[in-house]
């Protein structure tokens, strides 16, 4: 953007305990969507930053996913807490989309330990209308509709709030699988399924 104002850079948080890189093409896909639908200045390439590094504080929106047990190290927990306390937002997505799965259990435990207990996010929350309108709440993923995983369509996302603002957003709808494809393949979709990803980014940048 312009003179030297920082562009928005999509950041994947790398944590030590699990398979943090299980959705490698998701960042490029969301970057493509942000550039396609908005005039937000977005960096063309995403970054991967260790959550244990102070560099993570330069990226106020951090995306994390995985299938395996999810645990923060002490330095990861300290940085994650600092990022949220200073006004940043963390988006964690369960790549398994099963409510009894190991990622879900351990991630919710870790979120509770680090940030406080997450609660169901109302489906009329501002994040569902920050750019595209999702009047019914979080859009269902094809994996949910196909009956994979726990065979459930999860009605709500979970969130830890800082006043009216979401500081930690947790999904077990498996957006990581839903959005993990090359952006060129969007042309084969009648409705772009990454639109809710745009909402998450616009929400993080404006609230």
């Amino acid at each position, binding site marked *: *953007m*312009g*003179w*030297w*104002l*920082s562009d*928005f850079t999509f950041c994947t948080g790398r944590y030590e305990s699990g398979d943090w890189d299980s959705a490698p093409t998701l960042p490029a896909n969301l970057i493509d969507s942000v550039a396609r*639908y*908005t*005039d*937000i*200045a977005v960096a063309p390439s995403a970054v991967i930053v260790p959550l244990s590094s*102070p560099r993570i*504080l*330069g990226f*106020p929106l951090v995306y994390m996913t995985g299938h395996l047990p999810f645990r923060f190290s002490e330095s990861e927990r300290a940085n994650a807490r600092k*990022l949220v*306390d*200073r*006004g*940043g937002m963390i988006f964690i997505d369960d790549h398994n989309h099963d409510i009894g799965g190991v990622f879900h259990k351990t991630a919710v435990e870790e979120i509770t330990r680090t940030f406080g207990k997450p609660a169901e996010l109302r489906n009329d929350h501002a994040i569902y209308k*920050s*750019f595209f309108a999702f009047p019914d709440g979080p859009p269902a993923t094809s994996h949910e509709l196909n009956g994979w995983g726990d065979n459930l369509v999860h009605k709500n996302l979970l969130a830890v709030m800082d006043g009216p603002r979401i500081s930690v957003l947790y999904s077990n709808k498996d957006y990581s699988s839903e959005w993990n494809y090359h952006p060129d393949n969007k042309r084969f979709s009648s409705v772009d399924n990454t639109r809710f990803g745009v909402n998450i980014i*616009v929400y*993080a*940048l*404006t*609230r």
Partner: protein
Amino acid sequence: MRLPANRREWLELLLRGTAVVLIAVLGFRALFPAQARTGSDLIVARVADLPSLSRQSTPARIQFALDGIPTAVQRAWQNALKSAGSGVSWSGTANPVAIVARPVASPQGGYTLTAYSPDTTRLILRDNISTVDSMSMKGQPRSVVVPMASGNVRAVVGTDSAFARLSDSVIIGKILVIGKAGWESKFVMTALEEAGWKIDAIISVAPNVAVAQGSVTTIDTAHYAAVIALDESAATRATAIASFVKSGGGLVLSDLAARSGAFASLRVSAPGGAPHTSISSDTITHAEAAFSPILPSGNSVPLEERGGNVAVAAKRVDFGRVVQLGFNDTWKWRMQGGAESVSEHRTWWSNTLSQAVRSRRVTVDYAQSDPSPYTNLIDIAGHPVAPASPSQPLSQHSNEMLWLTVIGVLLFGEWASRRLRGAG
């Protein structure tokens, strides 16, 4: 008349006669004042003599021997004598001291106390409760911001002081933030809301799509105290913003916004292409603090300097004020700074904005202030002069008391003598 029969009666007659003569002299002095009687037109007096001076007919000239600045009441009395026709001058020593208290135009309140004393002195600031601060004066006015104070604030130098009554809190309207969706706009709004400012925002997300926060309305001084333009997206409203500023509103222009030609008439100066200055050991943060130096123009005032370059500057535009920033990425201070970075970022933005905002009302009760007693003394009695000759009476009142005492002793002696010898 029978002559005294002995020396005792001669003594009684002498006492009575002396008393009568003294009474006559006193009557004469009352009818014909000292300067008329002696030919001198100058009275050297102290401020404590003001009551007795006022009981006399108007002296032609009065010189007050001072060892400090008279109180406001005493100066008013001196001024009354001057208005009545006396020439008033003064000699001695008094410490020049002055103070101004202005409320900070911020939801967090506080006062900016600006004190002045020309000499290299220790100046102490006090309010009605305790000492607020102290400062070493070096011939220049100095300011300090205090979060709260009670009653009057007083600047004390030696035995002299000036005081200012604290005004009511200012009333501040809402702030309108205009910018593109991004970390800078988000964290500027966050910081200001944390500081208590009421924010409306127009955040551009896509062509013809903006996220509005609050109840965005017409940009005028009835609705907003200041506008913060964070980037070129504000240029589409530049005409309304210019009108707003000229009618008394405040404007904070980030470096990116100032680069827009739409703000050419409002900006302090056109940002140049100078290399950015990155200060890794900056005081506000250890984060990157890159900025584009502002080139001050003739009517601008530098507000903040970093590394010898102007980082923030302000200027007046008609009735309004414009504060131009050399910064664009202040959000990094908050996210990547030290342990206090959140409060430092919040305070920096709140303080910077408070220098631009239009505050709707400041009620100052000047009648109960004495902000500059020394200049008031100069206004009444001029600059100090060399002390006049001490041969002139310092106190007419004390002399009169002495004379009355002597008369009383004489008459009492005469009466006692007569009673002791059995006379009527």
